[in-house]
């Protein structure tokens, strides 16, 4: 059998082009990205057809998980510091500069104000642990949540309220949260939902 002679070709490919593409994509993702924010609990939001996007600034997020624990967070590091100072005054707890600085980088928290000092002393990994997701007291006996909302409004008058709750949360819990806000004359909220297809083809 005659051997077919194949010309030897180099297997080396010029990677330059591929490199260009990779870095182009990288640049794109770096410029368009805003990081996923870490949340203390996983919340499955219900879906709706609403297509209004949430504003990026001046937002206060109230996170409610399915068991009814309430978490809270506002944006803006300087605003956070101011907020904690005000809360500290109200509950006569003095926070050190170090603690204020720690607090300013926390996105969402869910601890009673009495435990805030201990919470801030933790390492950031420890803060995410399940046992530290206690929830802010929001019942009528000790409604700290109400004060958080009230002081957030003072600290940032333009703030908007976004409620992000789990779809399995019982209605009384949501009602309690909304009632608390209504007590403070906060009557407009954004309910965070995930997108669902609008049923355009309606049969009449």
């Amino acid at each position, binding site marked *: 059998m005659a051997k077919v002679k194949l010309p030897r070709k180099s297997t080396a490919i010029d*990677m330059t082009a*591929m490199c260009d593409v*990779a870095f182009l994509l990288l640049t794109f993702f770096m410029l368009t990205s805003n*990081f996923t924010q870490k949340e203390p609990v996983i919340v499955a939001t219900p879906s*709706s057809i*609403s297509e209004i996007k949430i504003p990026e600034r001046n937002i206060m997020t109230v996170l409610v998980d399915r068991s009814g624990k309430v978490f809270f967070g506002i944006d803006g590091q300087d605003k956070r510091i101011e907020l904690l100072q005000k809360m500290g005054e109200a509950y006569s707890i003095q926070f050190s500069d170090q603690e204020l600085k720690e607090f300013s980088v926390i996105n969402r928290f869910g601890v009673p104000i009495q435990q805030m000092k201990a919470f801030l002393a933790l390492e950031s990994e420890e803060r995410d642990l399940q046992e530290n997701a206690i929830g802010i007291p929001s019942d009528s006996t000790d409604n700290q949540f109400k004060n958080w909302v009230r002081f957030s409004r003072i600290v940032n008058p333009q703030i908007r309220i976004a409620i992000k709750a789990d779809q399995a949360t019982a209605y009384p819990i949501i*009602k309690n949260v909304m009632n608390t806000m209504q007590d403070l004359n906060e*009557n407009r909220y954004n309910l965070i939902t995930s997108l669902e297809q609008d049923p355009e083809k309606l049969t009449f």
Partner: protein
Amino acid sequence: MAEVSQESQGKKGKKKGAKKVSTRIDFTPMVDLGFLLITFFMLTTTMIKPQTMEIAMPSKEKVADEEQTKVKSSRAVTIILGKDNKVFYYEGTRENDIDPKVEVTDFSAKGIREFLIRKNYDVMVKVEELKKEKAVKEMAEEEFQKRKNELMGDKKAPIVIIKATNEASYKNLIDVLDEMAICNIGRYAIVDITEYDLELIGPFSI
């Protein structure tokens, strides 16, 4: 380009002096690195911003009785969110000691939506026409919203009162608010449930 051709090498034979080092660099590791970073950014970014639904609750301040808007019985539709994703609805209010007829349904397209569309048929048709007009005339979004709101504020359109029992979930609430948007209901309110309503749906819960 990273590859520099070195044709001059072969022609004049070997030159004395410094050895020519190839300027070719292997780009494979750099590509690896590039893609690794891309993967990282792709996984940590949120491309889609979460959607929100705007809702305004009534203020708690006491309104004088005369100022309070009384819902006309013929326009009133009450929706009660029960447990296990059940929805109860009735039209009107209690009149002349006759209880309104309560119906039970669910959140499917054939459920509460069909009822609401039937109740709000006139507005639905008008909004549908407006949508077509918008597509043809390239109407501005603002104008479209303005005209849509005008249509939805129709004097004969139903006013929906949403009441949730303690067994209802947050998803039910969002679903029903969603139905309001789908069915172009202009006026609706979330109200606390009363004893009377619980009595009305009582027979269904067994």
